[in-house]
């Protein structure tokens, strides 16, 4: 029964978030260190060695896994920091590390052959040929696929690889292929690949003006909000721009991904794990989302044929989602 897979992997941006995830039913958590070795390099987030050790102890004592993201791309001057992070992960006993860079994978494989490797979504592997490259060369056990494939395309990947496949289920949505987006560094010098953050806080400005609340990234106006609109974080792909005289969300609306209704199909395909986005979110968010998704995954495993997200789950998730479709009006266009 493939549905036995479907692990629930939840975000842990802090020790309290980790505990919230574990207490509310996550099979595993993913986390990163307090630096640019992972793709959620935001002030106030993430783990030092002590909190990491505490977190590992807390999760593993309860039979849950800790996956450590080292999913940015090390550069020549700072490569030793990434190597040290891999060593730390191995010595503290994480269950797997999540990597994007082939050079770093080679290091991990050689230095810690027992350490389980996952291919990060930042590795941009969208085909089984790419997944199998990492599988053959570094023995990755699992690949997280970028949020660009249809389920039929995901099925084709699964049919042609031995690697486990993990999919994003819920949370903030990158409209671009992860690992292949430099919009942030174009605007402000720091990209997810090198700096571990998109649209980083130091480049963000909020300003109340007569025209409304304006959000800027390194001076570029990302959005302007009327008084009745809730201003969002200026993630630059989710701003309103002008194209041929029309102002709209030209790249992506500030919406969240929610694939819950596809859970039965994901179970049928043999998806190994569902990942919840949101290491930058609060422990309360993690608790809420974990609880709902735990219930949903359990329901799918019990009775995939009759599975349907309950109104209560949908409402609970809608409440914590990023943004709102309400302000989009005529700008709404079907995805793709």
């Amino acid at each position, binding site marked *: 029964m493939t549905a036995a897979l479907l692990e629930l992997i939840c975000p842990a941006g802090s020790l309290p978030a980790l505990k919230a995830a574990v207490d509310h039913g996550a099979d595993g958590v993913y986390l990163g260190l307090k630096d640019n070795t992972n793709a959620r390099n935001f002030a106030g987030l993430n783990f030092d060695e002590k909190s990491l050790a505490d977190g590992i102890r807390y999760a593993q004592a309860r039979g849950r896994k800790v996956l450590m993201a080292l999913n940015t791309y090390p550069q020549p001057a700072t490569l030793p920091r990434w190597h040290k992070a891999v060593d730390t992960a191995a010595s503290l006993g994480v269950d797997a590390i999540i990597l994007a860079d082939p050079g770093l994978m080679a290091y991990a494989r050689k230095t810690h052959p027992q350490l389980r490797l996952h291919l990060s979504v930042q590795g941009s592997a969208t085909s089984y040929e790419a997944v199998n490259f990492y599988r053959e060369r570094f023995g990755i056990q699992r690949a997280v696929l970028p949020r660009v494939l249809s389920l039929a395309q995901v099925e084709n990947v699964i049919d042609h690889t031995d690697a486990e496949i993990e999919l994003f289920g819920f949370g903030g949505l990158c*409209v671009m292929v992860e690992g*292949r987006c430099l919009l942030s560094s174009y605007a402000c010098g720091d990209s997810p690949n090198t700096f571990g953050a998109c649209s980083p806080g130091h480049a963000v400005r909020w300003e109340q003006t007569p025209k409304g609340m304006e959000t800027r990234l390194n001076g570029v106006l990302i959005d302007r909000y009327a008084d009745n609109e809730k201003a969002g974080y200026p993630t630059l*792909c989710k701003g309103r721009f002008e194209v041929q005289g029309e102002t709209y969300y030209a790249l992506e609306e500030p919406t969240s991904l929610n694939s819950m209704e596809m859970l039965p199909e994901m179970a049928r395909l043999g998806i190994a794990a569902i990942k919840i986005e949101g290491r930058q979110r609060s422990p309360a968010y993690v608790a809420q989302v974990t609880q709902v998704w735990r219930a949903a995954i359990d329901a799918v495993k019990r009775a995939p044929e009759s599975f349907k997200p309950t109104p209560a789950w949908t409402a609970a998730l809608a409440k914590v989602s990023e943004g709102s479709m309400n302000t989009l009006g005529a700008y709404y266009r079907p995805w793709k």
Partner: protein
Amino acid sequence: MEMIKPVKRMKLALGPLLYYWSREDTLAFYQQAAGWPLDIVYLGETVCSRRHLLRLPDWLELAEKLGAAGKEVVLSSQTLIESESDLKALRKLIADGREGGNHPKVEANEWGAVRLLAEAGCEFVAGPTLNAYNPDTLAMLAEMGATRWVPPVEMPRETIRDMLAALPESTHIETELFGYGRLPLAFSARCFTARHYNLQKDDCQFRCLDHPDGLVLASREGEDFLAINGIQTQSAKVMSLAHRFDELPAAGIDVLRLSPQWRQMDRVVAIFRALADGDIAPKEAPARLDRFMPAAPCDGYWLGEAGMDYHPVGAPA
């Protein structure tokens, strides 16, 4: 006594055409390119599998012609592989490329292509979207058959220099830098051009044809910011290192990539050729280049800053 240092001549490459032009326009463009003072020409569709006006046999025919005109030809692979038919096209590109008369190399733009090329024992070019950010990854690519690499377009000169300095001595690989054109910044499953016209991607009516240099996206206060090119998002500004041409050798750059634009590419190539030949000084280049560019220049990435920044020569970097 003054030492005369042998100066390696910078090679010029015409990058793959990132836009979608009519068949006639595309063929005419490459017919002209055969006469331009270029060393290398990259051919093929790297952005969108729906673009079909030129098929592989057409590209191979162009490869023959350009090869006969003395160019080194490279076939570029698609960057975002989504479907089995994308993979079929990729395998065919690799296999048919090998059987072509002049055996053009392939530029691998994702790691599936690297796997297939290494398996087939082919030498290849490691494209900019392989994300080779450190010497370990670069050395691995070289070992797998890469004879040339294109750094990620965001990589600063210091990092490129450090990368090359840290390579094992036994590793030999040419470095090609994206040096002119709207920067390819991001790829998506979504087509932003179709979205602009309220069309589904699968029924996009090939609106990219109407935007031969991309479709500019501006901020709500009128600042040109990005350019939409189907599933690709580019910079609105044109990356240009013409004014910094003399800085390239110190960073280890062997080849400069010029990315095709809709009009007056011949003039752009001629100016870069004059730079490479030492016929004009880098500081004279911007004034000559300006009127042939579809938008204002930027050079921030080269200096390790925001990509959209621009520092005229003489101004402090």
